């Protein structure tokens, strides 16, 4: 997840307060809405994303990047391999959201750097990183709740 929990919950509070509340006329409903905003505001600083999915993502990314570095080393791209290994080793130890952010940034950087390599070597490395990205996409999809996109677009 790219939006910090505190930012997300404060954004929901702000939208309820500014865009929903003015249209609620029932006294009871307004009280419930104010209570929901109060709950969200107070929860925002106490909650964070679940760490287990982020731990899994970081371990998967680190494994893919180290495997990619080994393949690059075999193909003669020693400098890039060393840079990747050093980067992975330098990811922040905590919080886990920062480690995941560093992993995502490193993956994006490596994909860009592969553009400068000979085609066959880059073509051999991309699926290694792609395997992680595909698995990560599936892991994210598994966590999704049934979509309300139709209701959102219909209003």
């Amino acid at each position, binding site marked *: 997840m*790219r*939006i*910090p929990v505190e930012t997300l919950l404060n*954004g*929901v509070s702000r939208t309820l307060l500014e865009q929903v509340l003015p249209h609620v006329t029932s006294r009871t409903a307004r009280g419930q809405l104010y209570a929901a905003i109060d709950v969200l505001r107070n929860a925002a600083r106490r909650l964070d994303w679940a760490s287990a999915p982020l731990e899994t993502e970081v371990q998967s990314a680190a494994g893919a990047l180290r495997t990619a570095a080994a393949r690059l080393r075999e193909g003669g791209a020693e400098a890039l391999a060393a840079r990747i290994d050093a980067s992975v080793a330098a990811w922040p130890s905590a919080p886990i959201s920062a480690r995941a952010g560093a992993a995502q940034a490193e993956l994006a950087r490596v994909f860009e750097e592969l553009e400068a390599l000979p085609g066959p070597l880059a073509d051999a490395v991309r699926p290694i990183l792609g395997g992680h990205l*595909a698995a*990560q*996409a599936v892991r*994210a*999809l598994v966590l999704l709740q049934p979509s309300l996109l139709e209701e959102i677009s219909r209003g």
Partner: protein
Amino acid sequence: MIAIQMTGIRAFCDGRTADLRMAIFDHQLAFLHALVAGLRGWLPLP
């Protein structure tokens, strides 16, 4: 589409919009990531 969704996410994070339809992109992106992975051959498409 991914660029559009990332722009929405950044706008929400920066407080430039309180439109919650931007916030849902944060979890909806997984669908586009899976599609890209499928098109690249990294994930079998259904």
